[in-house]
């Protein structure tokens, strides 16, 4: 299952090479050409299955998913051989304590330790340490050895493996479902044929501000765009009456608006109509939360009508996330059906 390989791949923002190579291998034979741009975006073209008609340019549809994940970066080694680090993207100290990590392409193992409970002073447990107070122990016994093993700037991720939990929702767990789930959906979509030119953009640096998608969309100049995500699913039981954002098992989540984009109402309408016609469950993501590549894409050049469809994923931005393969498959079904029946053009109602 491609999601397993993608989840276990090493790819913090700015270091997506391994993810890119995996995807490249997976899409060989399903695309007509591809390029890797200056930032590292992988942009693949799958040409329209319709015979070319002279004077008629096929539609250009861009579908994007980001390859990067939140992670860490080594800043220096201290005299004892412990490594200090900063976070890459939205990662917080509360989920870093007592976690195993791997550093660099060689995946040097290390652990983020914490003072033993026995030696803590009163009140210490009521506070969280700062990331700058945490260190990674690799077993290196001095500064020189540690620096050599993991030089300044070495990237790191969680050492989490993928596994099935199952049940009727066929749940799985692994790291970085934000957004390897989206990448896996896009890989699946490329196996079908479409009556337009499909530009698949596997983007970089989404977690640092939607940076890869911006330049990818500039290059592609799509007529319409879809972004695929593994998005927030906060459906644990709660005391307060708060939105779960999305719910596990209730189907692909369609974004109305988030912090980065107001999705195109015509595309939302199209997605809903297709879902209902096909009997595919869907849900709307709680408006206003999070941001996605669509935030950058819809503002490129003169603007691009954009939509976002996501696989609900619990515990994103932590060492281990969880999703339902039923939701995953329904997301593939919905987007694939919506793409195959895409209108030739989108028009606003005529001015009266």
């Amino acid at each position: 299952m491609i999601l397993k390989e993608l989840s276990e791949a090493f790819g913090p923002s700015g270091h997506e090479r391994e993810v890119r190579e995996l995807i490249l291998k997976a899409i060989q034979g399903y695309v007509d050409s591809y390029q890797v741009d200056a930032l590292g975006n992988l942009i693949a073209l799958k040409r329209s299955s319709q015979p070319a008609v002279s004077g008629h340019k096929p539609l250009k549809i861009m579908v994007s998913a980001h390859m990067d994940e939140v992670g860490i970066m080594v800043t220096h080694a201290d005299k004892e051989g412990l490594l200090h680090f900063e976070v890459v993207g939205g990662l917080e100290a509360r989920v870093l304590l007592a976690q195993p990590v791997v550093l660099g392409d060689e995946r040097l193992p290390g652990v983020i330790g914490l003072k033993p409970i026995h030696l803590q002073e009163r009140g210490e447990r009521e506070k969280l340490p700062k990331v700058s107070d945490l260190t990674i122990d690799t077993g290196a016994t001095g500064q020189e050895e540690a620096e050599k093993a993991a030089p300044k700037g070495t990237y790191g991720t969680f050492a989490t493996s993928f596994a099935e939990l199952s049940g009727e929702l066929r749940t799985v767990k692994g790291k970085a479902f934000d957004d390897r789930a989206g990448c896996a959906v896009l890989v699946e979509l490329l196996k079908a044929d479409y009556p337009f030119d499909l530009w698949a953009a596997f983007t970089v640096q989404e977690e640092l501000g939607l940076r890869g998608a911006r330049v990818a969309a500039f290059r592609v100049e799509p007529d319409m765009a879809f972004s695929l995500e593994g998005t927030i699913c906060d459906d644990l039981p709660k005391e307060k009456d708060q939105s779960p954002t999305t719910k596990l098992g209730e189907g692909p989540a369609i974004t109305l608006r988030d912090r980065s984009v107001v999705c195109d109402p015509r595309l939302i309408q199209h997605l809903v109509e297709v879902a209902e016609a096909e009997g595919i469950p869907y849900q709307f993501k709680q408006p206003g939360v999070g941001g996605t590549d669509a935030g950058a894409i819809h503002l490129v050049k003169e603007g691009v009508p954009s939509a976002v469809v996501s696989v609900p994923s619990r515990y994103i931005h932590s060492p281990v996330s969880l999703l339902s393969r039923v939701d995953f498959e329904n997301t593939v079904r919905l987007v694939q059906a919506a793409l195959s029946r895409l209108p030739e053009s989108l028009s606003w109602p005529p001015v009266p």
Partner: protein
Amino acid sequence: MEVISFLRQLSEAAGVSGYEESIRQLVIEQFAQFADEVRTDKLGNVMALKWGEGQEPHPRIMLAGHMDEIGLMVTQLKEGFLHFTTVGGIDPRVVLGQEVIVHGRRDLPGIIGSRPPHVLPSEEREKPQPVEELFIDLGLPQEEVAQWVRVGDLATIHRRFIELKNGWVAGKGFDDRAAVAAIGFCLAELARMRHQWDVYGVATVQEEVGLRGAITSTYNIMPEVGIAIDVGFGTTPGQLEGVSIKMDKGPAIAFGPNIHPQVHKGLVEAAQALEIPHQIEPIPGPTGTDAWAMQVTREGIPTGLISIPLRYMHTSVETLVIRDIERTGRLLAGFISRLDEAFREALYEQPKIGEAK
């Protein structure tokens, strides 16, 4: 005996205090290779006996390392998620975002889920979440969860054994399975050495909830000398030097009111004679180890304590150096092979102040 593979097995198996069965099987299997007899007692302690030689009755020495570990216990099922509490001293901050195994009617993998930063107000992201507010997520429908899990079921952190650089390793439950591995190594060493005393290698239960296995096993064995082996706080930058011992500098031989001066002296002399790297650890009060219970068993037992240096105690990434376990095993074997009648007699002479060291 290969220490690293035995420790790996012990670490990856689950055995929360009072529920040590999987560990017990591994220990029996390993200890039986080098012992003359292996038996268990009513609380579940494993006691491996290796006979001494020479005139009977042989004096007895007992080595104790505890095989239980800290863990979690399910307190409530709520909409298919599990509320839990801690068993033993666990810092609530180190469980968020961890993977667990829930030991229900069958073992079930789960996640202690962290809510994403996108939906949390900043004050909640900056302070630890109390354990009562956390959930274990098994990824299963409510009905299925209820079918497999009941209140009171135990859970352990799911942690694979990690090999770091330089023979350092990280994982869970090294407290105190590192000592169980050291005792196994000692028994293996003794298999090719001569010793007069009978040796009891004991893997004790329920240490983390009050040194309970040591109480009954020491009573049962009635040793002339008892030595507890536990893990000690390995020096980490920012931690008090005075309460920590150095990593990779060999076993720390404790000294203080819990320790019989003659036992301390004998251990130090053995380490010196065999040129085994070692350190001295002064502990002026309760040691919080099996040695504390052993010392006051029956009429009183001359007791020693050896600590294996370990960082990040009571987390799922406890870190130690394999060499320190081997050195501990070699030291114990060397000490045992030197035990004789003169040593036994010296246990009841009161040394003058200062002489013991």
